[in-house]
């Protein structure tokens, strides 16, 4: 797979306009299997917008976006099936327990739900599996959102400020999950201020102005 020159995510001359304002333009990016692409830039530089473009939620104003050499617009359902998107919101319902959230997420994504216990464990949430989300702290809520990555496996992870509200051990847990995902040939694109990923990450800086 690594020998395939088109494998992974490739964006060329991407542009994004929101509310009549050009957020970014002429943006090229590349992430091959095993890559971590870290998005940097000031607030409002377009990191979140770029992640939404990569997820297919927002159509780019110009440019092309390919996965394994095929335009993602050709088969949006296939693109949705291959990505896991963790937005800056945690998408938790106050009255549902963490296990219920993850089982629902797995079913929504067509996964079996056999990974739910391991996903909770990986982020130190095993003891909170039956706790409704309204009793959780900010950091615990963030970890519950991140546990979705492992509950329903997908090759492409799109993470928007994944470390928001996390303490150091939780950042380490995320770094381990990212490292395992990359070792298995997955692609990670993350907008983050923290160096949670260690070395060997590619960096893309937006809005250099």
């Amino acid at each position, binding site marked *: 797979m690594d020998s395939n020159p088109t494998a992974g995510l490739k964006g060329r001359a991407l542009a994004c306009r929101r509310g009549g304002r050009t957020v970014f333009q002429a943006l090229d990016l590349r992430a091959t299997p095993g890559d971590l692409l870290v998005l940097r830039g000031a607030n409002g530089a377009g990191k979140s917008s770029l992640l939404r473009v990569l*997820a297919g939620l927002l159509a780019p104003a110009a440019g092309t976006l390919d996965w394994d050499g095929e335009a993602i617009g050709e088969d949006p359902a296939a693109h949705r099936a291959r990505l896991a998107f963790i937005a800056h919101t945690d998408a*938790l*319902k106050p*009255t*549902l327990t963490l296990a*219920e959230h993850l089982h*629902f997420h797995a079913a929504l*994504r067509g996964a079996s739900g056999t990974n739910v216990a391991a996903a909770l464990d990986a982020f130190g949430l095993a003891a909170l599996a039956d706790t409704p989300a309204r009793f959780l702290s900010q950091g615990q809520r963030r970890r519950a959102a991140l546990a979705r990555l492992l509950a329903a496996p997908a090759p492409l992870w799109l993470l928007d400020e994944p470390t928001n509200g996390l303490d150091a051990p939780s950042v380490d847990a995320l770094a381990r999950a990212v490292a395992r995902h990359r070792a298995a040939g997955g692609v990670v694109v993350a907008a983050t201020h923290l160096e949670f990923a260690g070395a060997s990450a590619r960096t893309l800086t937006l809005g250099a102005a």
Partner: protein
Amino acid sequence: MNAALALVVRDLRLALRTPAETLTILAFFVIAATLFAFGIGPEPQALARVATGIVWVVALLACLISLDRLFQSEADDGSLDQLVLAPASLELLVLAKCLAQWLTTALPLIVVSPIVATMLQLPAQGYATLLLTLLLGTPSLSLFGAIGAALSVGARKGGALLALIVLPLYIPVLIFAVAAVEAQIAGLSPRPHLFLLAGFGVFALTITPFAAAAALRQASE
């Protein structure tokens, strides 16, 4: 298909964990109908004349109130992104949301409606047809309501906008439903009206998934 089923189960679970939402809608239904009874006066003939119309208008408004949060609650906590990005078709997920909304709002209203109808002195021969029109007509309310709810996601004063979008679509349902019950009470066949009501439901079922899904994709840009 499993994704849609999981969404129905999740929404039912959410409704059971916060029963206050369903109970508030039911209380609104009963209290608003009672207000009409007080406003029109205790004369049985006067109430009986308007009973069907009152039950239907109040049920329709109760349904409208519950629709306000249908997709807005998903957008507020970020769940909408996850629904739009699910590999399953968003159209199917929209129908799942409608089904859950119908089960948690319209069905309790239908169960309570005979009590309200009694209070409003509905003639005895009208009950069965009233229930039938509610069973046939309320799915259209949920479905058309979902279009309005999807279009008003993110809008300020979304509730008022929702009413403006949805209420005109409810007019045919109201007309056919009331006409069916009136025909039954007058000793005529309600069947033509019931067929029109059912046909309108099929129309709602065909356009809602696509219209609401398109609106939700727009909302999650």
